[in-house]
């Protein structure tokens, strides 16, 4: 497994929950985002993910560190780049903590924060062949989420 948090192509979900659980942890919360077949009523056939690699890698690492500090959880995040098909996984977050409340809170915070702070862009490919970048949200600092 690469230590990079950006991966070329779809993510393999099983890989992210297979690591042994630390003995002091009792809860693992996991989130995966996958490519849907529809967006705002329009049939989607796939998504190409673009990233600013250096800044994205830095911010993904910072999200893990900030989640640990805020929630006392061990958090790992990864995001796909390149062409994904419907059903493919584009993003994963895994949070391990003493109890489920912290695990859920850290997992939810990490995915919500990732969407606002990491320089990644969805270029949707529609069933009719057209491609379009999603509108998105102005990038924020992690500390402001």
């Amino acid at each position, binding site marked *: 497994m690469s230590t990079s948090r950006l991966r070329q192509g779809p993510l393999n979900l099983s890989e992210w929950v297979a690591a042994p659980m630390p003995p002091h942890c009792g809860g693992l919360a996991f989130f995966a985002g996958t490519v849907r077949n529809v967006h705002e009523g329009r049939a989607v056939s796939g998504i190409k993910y673009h990233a600013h690699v250096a800044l994205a890698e830095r911010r993904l690492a910072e999200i893990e560190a900030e989640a640990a500090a805020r929630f006392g959880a061990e958090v790992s995040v990864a995001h796909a780049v390149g062409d994904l098909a419907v059903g493919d996984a584009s993003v994963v977050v895994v949070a391990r903590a003493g109890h489920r409340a912290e695990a859920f809170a850290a997992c939810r915070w990490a995915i919500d924060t990732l969407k606002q702070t990491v320089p990644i862009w969805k270029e949707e490919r529609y069933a009719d062949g057209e491609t379009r970048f999603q509108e*998105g949200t102005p990038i924020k600092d992690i500390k402001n989420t």
Partner: protein
Amino acid sequence: MRIVIECCGASQRWCGAESVSLDLGETATVSSALDRMAERYPELAARRETLAVAIGDQIVHAGRALAEGERLALIPPVSGG
């Protein structure tokens, strides 16, 4: 000075290019580079307030002074996840 702007995400479409070279004065800042881009690309101008700029692996503030040959990345609104 001459700098290069790398156009990320949808900004490639707004500028019609993956990267753009700019000739700027000696005291150029991130803000003056964005001004020049906005003059040149109307689709960018309309979104000026939503843009950020990265140098290396960090977001830089508008007042940061630029140096000859630097590479800036234009960061339009993000849509990861």
